[in-house]
């Protein structure tokens, strides 16, 4: 079974970059264009790990984490926050909301895979 990734980002470029890297590395890649769509897709995709942008229309990354960790879904799925906002309090806020880790944009293939490895154990 391939490790399933659900990537949520409103930037098509970032989605394409993620898709290229992740598919090449052997992950199963799913994506959503904003937080709301990501949360809506979550049950159907049942991903092993979620990668989400922070600043998005409709529902931002914090909203995604809160909804995924909230009572309704109450998932322990690893959630990686994908963000250029590398300021410590942004990470702290994401973690308080329940994020597992973060990937700083711009990312390279190696650090992306490394981050995924640490939260899913996937050896892609």
């Amino acid at each position, binding site marked *: 079974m391939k490790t399933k990734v659900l990537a949520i980002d409103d930037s098509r470029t970032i989605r394409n970059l993620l898709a290229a890297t992740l598919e090449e590395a052997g992950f199963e890649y799913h994506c959503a264009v904003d937080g709301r769509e990501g949360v809506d897709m979550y049950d159907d995709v049942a991903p092993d790990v979620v990668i989400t942008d922070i600043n998005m229309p409709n529902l931002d990354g914090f909203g995604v984490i809160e909804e995924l960790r909230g009572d309704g879904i109450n998932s322990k799925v690893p959630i990686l926050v994908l963000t250029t906002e590398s300021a410590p309090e942004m990470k702290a806020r994401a973690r308080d909301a329940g994020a597992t*880790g*973060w990937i700083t944009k711009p990312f390279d293939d190696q*650090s992306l895979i490394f981050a995924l490895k640490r939260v899913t154990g996937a*050896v892609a």
Partner: protein
Amino acid sequence: MSGSIQDTFFEECEELLEAMDEGLTAIEGGDHDPEVVNAVFRAVHSIKGGAGAFGLDELVAFAHKFETVFDEVRSNKLELDTKLIQLLLRCSDHLADLVTVSRDGGSVDEEHNDVLIAGLEEYLDEEEEDLTFEPMGLGGPSVPLPLAAEEEKSYEIRFRPLKEMFGTGNEPFFLFQALSELGTLEVVLDETELPGFDAMAMDDSYLAWNLTLTTTEPKSAVEAVFEFVEGLCELSIASDKDAEEEAAALAALNAAFGVPGDSAEPETPAPFDAPAPAEATPMATPQATEKVETVKPESNKSEQRGPKPTLRVDLERVDRLINAVGELIINHSMLAQQIANLDVADLRDVETELEGFKNLARDIQEGVMSIRAQPVKPLFQRMARIVREASSATEKTAKLITEGENTEVDKTVIERLSDPLTHILRNAVDHGIEKPEDREAAGKNRTGEIRLSASHRSGSVCIEIKDNGAGINRPRVKQIAIEKGLIPENADLTDAEIDNLLFLPGFSTAKEVSNLSGRGVGMDVVKNAVTALGGRINVSSTPGKGSTFTIILPLTLAVMDGMVVSVADQTMVVPITSIIETMRGSDDMINSLGADGTLLSIRGNFVPICDVAGALGLRKPEGDKPPGVYLLVETETGQRSALAVDDIHDQRQVVIKSLDGVCGNIPGVAAATILGDGKIAMILDSESIIAASPTSATFDSDRRMSNAIAS
């Protein structure tokens, strides 16, 4: 990274730039809705993010400054006053330039770049200067650097998760797995803290691990594995090389990592961990004195769902489909013709089905055309920039107001309309709009207005550019035309005719060549571009009130409604949009004018007759008397002519086949089409046929005389 991903990045940039322009224009118009501000911020942010991924440093650096200022606006630390809005607009233009340069190569005006950056920095705190954005920071410490030369070391790691860690989805097992990839790992579970079963709290953490890792990797690589659980565990990492310092290190690390939520930042080597500028230091701006309402408590908009789902398709595929539909329409008319030729008594059923076929073909055609159709909005948005630039270059103030932005036009038309519109708008600012003081003296608002509107008008698209400037200086235009030998000195022209002199080749009113509109191209180039699209352009003007340019374009470039006529035994097609009415003439309606001119009298008005066969050289003008069917057409100057043809056969949709590249420019012929019988028919360009007709030439100069005849 793959080039195609970069291509989509630039594609996305176009969309983001549009969104940004749209937002800024709304902001300029007084809409300071937080969601609008947020949308602009996101656009800039996404451009920066993507640019970073491709190492486009210059773009990243500028976008970063832009974004930072906008972030201040977003968090209401900066107020959107006119000066800031103007700066942001210029920055958005520059950002667009940077994107273009990044894509196509070339260079930007460094000085302009620096001026804008300095302008942006005025709005930023000085401390902000220290926070330089590292474009290629690539994840910083999380990259395990493969330093092969490093000698093997052994690390003693003690890892004790706090209960907070389990709420974040971090799993110790995966961390160990990642560690084991660095070298040889031994894992020993320490369960000494595990209480008796009855004393155990479900959500607490009691387990700890002692790990021994033998690896060539540096300590930072080991720490990187635990990056996500910093502050969520008790962690100590000690290498055998510094065993004597172990105790001290353990104490230090525990102090650093020990308490979750500790505000003291542990000694991570992350390059980004500089203090956040915005939150840390609220800023005072020079503009902070006047209070502007920036927040509207209207959050409903944020509830709006995103755009409708769309499918991105290669344009080539759509064009293939359009060609196929064109063939389908031709095929239908061939089939219809062959069925009509059959010697069958009752064709009613077949004809009913054939009619259905025709309707379906038309539906498909319309559907396919609508795929190519795009709103003129992006085009219009770009034009706002043209007006801004033109205004600042000429030291005038003008603003562009756009209407009917959602009017959809064929993609090719939009692409090819950009240059003509740019030219007209530059002209409007340069020649039309007066200097602010002159406007004031004339009792007008200092800011000139240019209204750019698009609308659908009976099968065609109408684009209007209307300014409220000084209007066309007719005596001057006429004088120039005479000086340049474009019209005879004694020419008696109507106001409309004078206005349209602007479109003559070789006409340019610029007294001195300004760096703006005087670029060696005149309005004739604009006219040619519009004509090439099968459209018409017209200008009207009221002195002191302004001028209006009207461009009428066909909805599609592929199919049109035409009237099938025969001329000297040839079948031809006249575009139906130019035809006002058709009539069968009788001898008493025809009057001679001069040596070879003839006029058609219609309800008391005289209209010059243009013999199509004669104009195309298919029949000598003095040969047979003009045929009996007339198509009354109107030219772009509003002048009417009667095209004389032999007969009218049909009115139908024809597929336009361009003659470009097949043969040169034939006066009088716009394109060709294929008819139901498989024969090729020319599509006539009534404008140029009339221009070539001897009667209209005579008629033009003798109009007053003919009017005298009429009365």
